[in-house]
């Protein structure tokens, strides 16, 4: 019997295990991966491969506020790209640049196309955005 086999992990859901850690700590550390490796009898490399292929999982600590502004076709046509540029200007940062307090990340279609443009801050959804609304939300969130 080979030591590594996905059949051994029958009905043990790696995704669920990783999501619990991600939701609690905001990221998955190396020691978490080594522990998962023992529980699931998979090599750390395979777990690392799975983690890095999903958008939700982080391998490093993330900012307090994660801002995602949708730029998929509908939101894009309603000015999504300009909203991203405005957010970059208001927060004096670039998309993808990490700092302890906030980070603007790219995101794809959230399934709210009838209420676009949309944005999430830490899983809280804001819809039907425009420039004034964005500024107000950032003020409410104490980002500016």
């Amino acid at each position: 019997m080979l030591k590594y086999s996905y059949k051994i992990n029958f009905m043990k859901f790696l995704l669920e295990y990783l999501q619990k850690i991600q939701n609690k700590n905001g990221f998955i550390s190396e020691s978490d991966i080594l522990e998962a490796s023992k529980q699931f009898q998979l090599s750390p490399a395979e777990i690392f491969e799975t983690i890095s292929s999903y958008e939700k999982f982080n391998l490093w600590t993330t900012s307090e506020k994660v801002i995602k502004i949708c730029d998929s076709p509908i939101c894009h046509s309603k000015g999504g790209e300009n909203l991203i540029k405005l957010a970059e200007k208001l927060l004096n940062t670039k998309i993808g640049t990490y700092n302890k307090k906030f980070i603007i990340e790219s995101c794809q279609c959230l399934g709210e196309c009838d209420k676009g443009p949309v944005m999430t801050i830490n899983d809280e959804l804001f819809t039907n955005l425009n420039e004034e609304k964005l500024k107000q939300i950032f003020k409410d969130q104490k980002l500016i």
Partner: protein
Amino acid sequence: MLVTIDGKKIKVNKKCTILELATKNGIKIPTLCYHPDLRSDGKCGVCVVEVNGKLMTSCNNDISDGMIIQTTNERIIKQRKINAQLVGCNFEDEEEFRKWLKLSNMPDIDELKFKPHASQELDDSSHDIVMDFKNCVLCGRCIQKCRDIQTVNAICYKGRANATVVTKSLGKKLIDTNCVGCGQCSLVCPTNAIREKESYKEIKKLLKDPKKHIIAQTAPSIRVALGEEFGLEAGISVTGQMVSALKKVGFKKVFDTNFGADLTIMEEASELIERIRKNKDLPLITSCCPAWINFIETFYPEYLNHLSSCKSPHQMFGALIKTYYAQKTKINPRDIIVVSIMPCTAKKYESCREEMSVGGIRDVDFVITTRECAKLIKSFNIDLKLEKKMQFDNPMGPGSGGGAIFASSGGVMESAIRTAHYFLTGKEYSAIDFKVLRGNSGFREASIKIGNKTLNLAIIHSLKNARKILEILKKTRHKYHFIEIMACPGGCIGGGGQPKPTSKEIIKKRAKASYEEDKSLEFRQAHKNPNIIKVYMEFLGKPLGKLSKKLLHTKYSDKSKCGL
């Protein structure tokens, strides 16, 4: 089934892929990520063919009754040209890219329109392997080898979409991962993104230094494979030409590592007999494969007591060169440089280990692979094919037939049994060719009667089978007496430093050549080799004696790192 390919109607009985059918019928379809020993996923898209008006990859699609296949037409050529554009920027340099285009029957293109976009740093932290992923085309062959065949998992994918890269486990440096240095990844990399850590250029400089006494020793696997680097077919033995070329390059002496293999047999057969007598630490497991040693130290350190304490052949030989040979020739051992030419990348780290030195002097100073050896010879504008055959130098060598078969999986076992049988019974084994120990499978078992004892033997190649047998040992520890384990598929002839391409078919041909060499030699058993008898009489004393233990034996330690 009736299949039409390029207008030709062919009757097919067995199911196969479109690519296999084309190859069988002499039609060359270009490939990049395809490898006959590995699973085909259709990753690179180069092998497209047209079937019923649609384009599809031929490596992972099966034929079906009534299929009409076209392997080349205007649409397919256009597709391949764009594919070449996308892939071309990842090759080491344009020359290598154009060589690949020609070799694989791809259409030529004018100039490369895209620039590469990968951005990983070069990783040369390991002693054995260098990983330069800016040249990676993501064919995934290396990961298949490391995951499915070696079960080491030192490399993996990371990310998704255009940020997908091949990288080391957990993003660490290679030396901090579980990598055992077997080099199977470098053996299958089509663009040399993964390659051995080269040292032949440094040796070339040292060859010019008149104060240094540089010696080369060549493994049994080199002589049956080196010819492939010079255009010869696989399985042609080029022993004599290799010696001649190496002498021309400037090595003062060219020795035969088969001699070192004979030393290993003398010591290991004696060790086997002692362990059987004491019924202690059985089964005895061979220790001449450094990647296997790295593997057991990393993943199964609880079994270290089963390993033979013998050094590997080239290390034993190096130790003797720096003592016995140095004394005989009155050369200062510090002026002797031993270069081992090996089919192996893991031996580079092995030669650096602290245990592989005596009195502060390293047994072996450099290890270069078969591929590096070819580059060294070519850099002197020498064509191996045109060299005259020469003999190995004395006083250390040549080796016996038992040493020659070390190259192939099962060879160490067979050779050890030839000698152990003589040591135990005083008689030679009746059938000198232990056919029952030969074969291609990575997990072979056999039982052999020596005198009134029946020995249970196992021969393993590929680390996934090493895992398998260690898991079996957990339950039935005392079933086996002696196990040979080689990390590389096929044994050393399929080693990580051998010429590319290497496949199961080519390994079979190389193995055949090494068994033929064994048959052709004057002495076929290690214990009959007069030079071996002389060394023990003049210098070492006896196998497992005090001096033998000091020079020819080693020890191991627990090197487990990140869990599994």
